């Protein structure tokens, strides 16, 4: 069976991995390649690397950055930021990306997707769409959430599918950095509208939010950036909790947490002193391949 994916997002701002709040404020977290290396070791099903300033600064995500990340990543690496042409996409794939994220360019140049799909295939193209709630529906925003296109998300998503993208990464701007859960109505609406996989992003603050999302809507994947950055083994722990709640995710990293107890919201419960004491001299030899 196909597993639900848990995706870690690394946002790059002026060469640093950052935490983003409401698309406006940014806090530095780490070196992007190091973030990628950790997410890989913690069992992320996919890693998305986005240069959030690239389009606005009229450049594309630096190839060296992609290569440094790809060298430490044995999970799929999806890369975006300032990719405006088939040539930009080719160069980014050659630098080490497995899939490509398109956002600003798609709104400006509708011909890009068919051209890129012909060359690289739909399965290589992820359209990232930034939306805000607007009355009962949702509207697409351009240019890092600054410009209201007035286009309803359902129309836009269907247009993207027809043009040939393989997946849609749907980002709820209002939820960005708030850690109070995913925008469930948005994803319910989106998965009905298209038959390509939909990835939810924005609002994850605890493992229970992922359960809520997968129970509410048939999304193929849930993504988070901020939430995964600040806790060691964050991805592994979230997956262990999801499995406990009956959601089929991959869990084959070394640390598994599948015999752990969980507290409110899916936080790890504290182990007993006896258990921790017994672990003290346990040997964990490296795995040989």
């Amino acid at each position, binding site marked *: 069976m196909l597993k639900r994916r848990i995706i870690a997002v690394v946002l790059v701002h002026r060469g640093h991995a950052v935490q983003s709040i409401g698309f406006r404020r940014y806090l530095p977290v780490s070196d992007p390649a190091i973030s990628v290396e950790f997410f890989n070791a913690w069992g992320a099903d996919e890693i998305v690397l986005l240069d959030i300033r690239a389009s606005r600064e009229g450049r594309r995500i630096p190839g060296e950055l992609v290569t440094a990340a790809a060298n430490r990543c*044995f999970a799929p690496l999806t890369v975006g930021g300032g990719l405006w042409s088939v040539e930009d996409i080719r160069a980014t794939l050659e630098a080490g990306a497995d899939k490509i994220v398109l956002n600003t360019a798609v709104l400006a140049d509708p011909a890009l997707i068919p051209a890129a799909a012909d060359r690289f295939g739909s399965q290589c193209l992820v359209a990232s769409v930034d939306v805000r709630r607007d009355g009962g529906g949702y509207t697409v925003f351009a240019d890092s959430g600054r410009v209201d296109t007035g286009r309803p998300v359902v129309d836009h998503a269907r247009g993207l599918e027809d043009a040939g993208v393989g997946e849609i990464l749907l980002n709820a701007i209002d939820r960005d950095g708030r850690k109070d859960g995913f925008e469930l109505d948005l994803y319910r609406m989106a998965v009905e509208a298209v038959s390509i996989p939909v990835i939810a992003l924005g609002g994850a603050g605890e493992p229970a939010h992922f359960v809520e999302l997968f129970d509410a809507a048939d999304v193929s994947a849930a993504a988070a950036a901020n939430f995964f950055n600040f806790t060691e083994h964050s991805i592994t722990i979230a997956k262990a909790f999801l499995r406990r709640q009956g959601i089929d995710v991959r869990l084959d990293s070394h640390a598994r947490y599948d015999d752990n107890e969980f507290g409110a919201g899916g936080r790890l419960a504290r182990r007993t002193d006896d258990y921790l004491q017994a672990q003290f001299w346990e040997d964990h030899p*490296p795995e040989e*391949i």
Partner: protein
Amino acid sequence: MLIRIVDYGMGNLRSVYNAVRFLGYDVRIGDDADTVAAADVVVLPGVGAFGQAMENIHRLGLYDALDEHVRSKGKPFFGICLGMQLAARSSGERGAHAGFGWIDGDVVSLADRGAPLRVPHVGWNTLRPVTPSPLTEDVQPSTSFYFDHSFELRCDARYTAAVCDYGGDLVAAIRKDNLFATQFHPEKSQSSGLRLLRRFFDAVGVPRPRPNQRIVRC
């Protein structure tokens, strides 16, 4: 033994190169017929459209060298994703295209399955081994691999090494003599994928270059 990854302008070779290097093998990437002709083991990755791939292979003059390597010399070959599909007789991806025809099978759209499936088939799926193959020897029911494709190979059951479930059985790995191929991406399937690549190189007799690669568990 010389391991060569074939560069025919289709997608991400670096991840395959990284994975093979990680296992310690001396490997190079080449885009000409001489490289393929000299190789003992050929790895054919590939992301993208079938028609464009065959066009590139012809344009770069790689067709005969690859065909000889697999068909007449019977040397070890590993195809990944599109690299597996190219072994088929034909593909219906955006038109009708002829493949190498190493396997009695054809490539068709996943949308033809009729079931209400999301296409492309993206993500981690588990395998069910069908015929014994060194590749899937220690694959557990929970072992997952990363898939990302909109088209599938339908082939003679003799060659099907493993299937996965996506609206019914879907060919995930094939084997015919020295030809091995997977629809999924072992180079992007973390330690499960690296182990599978190791089993391939062991199975075709590539000596392990140095003590086993150790993954520090964290």
